[in-house]
């Protein structure tokens, strides 16, 4: 989970640097930006498929499913339980914006940050659990 968390977070940093036009944007190569975009698209598509398997919008794009941790998927589901339909729509929007290289909306950035935070919380939790197990 640690590697996945690191990869999602690093891709988000690249996307946000470019979006906010921060000083470090000049150090990001076009390939790096494209790779980060592609990586996050894959993550979000797999997330949509895991939350609602009956959605087939992106089936042709799933070349190799990314194994997202069950705890991460459950956490995302629970955080959006009351507004799942809207959340899925928001995920579809960010996927499309990333695909078309369009500017991300405030809602897109909110979702991106939320996903990074959930992944971070789950990684920290599994890390704490690892040490607890060892101290039995």
């Amino acid at each position, binding site marked *: 989970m640690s590697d996945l968390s690191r990869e999602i*977070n*690093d891709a*988000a*940093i690249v996307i946000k*640097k470019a979006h906010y036009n921060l000083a470090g944007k000049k150090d990001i190569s076009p390939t790096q930006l494209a790779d980060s975009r592609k990586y996050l698209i894959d993550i979000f598509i797999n997330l949509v498929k895991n939350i609602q398997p009956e959605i087939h919008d992106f089936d042709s794009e799933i070349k190799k499913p990314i194994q997202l941790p069950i705890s991460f998927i459950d956490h995302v589901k629970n955080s959006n339980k009351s507004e799942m339909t809207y959340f899925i729509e928001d995920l579809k929007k960010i996927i499309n914006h990333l695909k078309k290289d369009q500017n991300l909306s405030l809602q897109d950035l909110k979702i991106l940050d939320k996903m990074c935070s959930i992944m*971070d919380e789950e*990684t*920290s939790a599994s*890390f704490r659990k690892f040490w607890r*197990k060892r101290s039995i």
Partner: protein
Amino acid sequence: MNSFFPSLVLELHNRCEKIITLLEQHELPVEIEPNLKNTIKKTISIKSNLESILADPDFGAPELLINQINRYKRCYESYSVIEKIQLPILLRYSEKDHFFHSFLKQSLAQINYKIETPLISAASTNYYEVFADKNPVFSSFFVPVVDDIFLLNLPDLFHEIGHLIFLHKENEMSYEFAIKFNDYLSSEKNRLKIQTRPFEPKFYDNLEELWKDSWVKEHTANMIATYCLGPSFGWQCLRICVNTGEDVYFPSKIITQPDDHPSFESQIQGILEILRIMGMKSEFSTLNEKWNQYKMFCHFDKPTEHDHCYPEYLMKSLAENVFQGCTKIGLKPFVSQNHIKGLINIPLTLDHSWNLFHIDPKKFLIWEESEVKNLKATLSKIP
């Protein structure tokens, strides 16, 4: 957070720097040089990551602060594994560790699992355990401090080796089982919808989490150990069960009693299944008989939930999968082990230890003392 966070990054960077110097100046036996080099390499990589956080022109930018803190946390987690696991072994490497290093190296060679020898420390406060990493030289085993002078516990080291093998070869060991297990859960959950069942849906959610999180690993590690050692692993499992006094059917009412380890009943059934597949009929019968006697004497009551937690056909499926997996990756089964003059065959020695223990415990204690000396003398000659 704006000033506190950079200080944290700086402090962790300083720790990495100091540890790298400490390790580079520390003299260690040549046998653990690969492990030492790898730990230094890993610490250097964490240090570089921290440097890239510090050198980022956007370091501390409010828009990125949360992501930068996340990056720092991952660095800290990697660092703390080095500080708490690798460093104590490397900085306090002892004669006992040296013995266990040779023992582990020989064990891995004799079961034909070709990897660089992981670190091993004889200073466990938590019985046998492994910190398994995808990279073998970064994996670390911990064993009890006195187990270099006794033989009967040693099969448990092979259970920990089983955990390492599972991490490296999960698909080979449990892919077919995982499909059957998912089918089982789906069909049980569907039955809940159409007919009255004694369980809540939550029961199966917990069951799924426990199996996927830990039980499949524990059972697989047991089965790999049995594949490599034969019945001696089963006897050691029975001994642990008696020593801990655990109800053999615990856990099965999993909603209120979660546990990382599956029930001893299911563990022994898994071990027996591997013995059966390997064609060890008489060993199967003897262990099975003793196990049934133990359950009878202690009057354990089997809860209804037990068979739903560990269905027999799934246990058999996992055993078949693990057996095929072990064969596929070329592990040497216990039944193919043979003595070579001048060498100590560890699986056969452990088997002989348990046989002697059953036949004449007093004689075994005398024999054990001399056999340990013999083992140490033989292993000390191996480079």
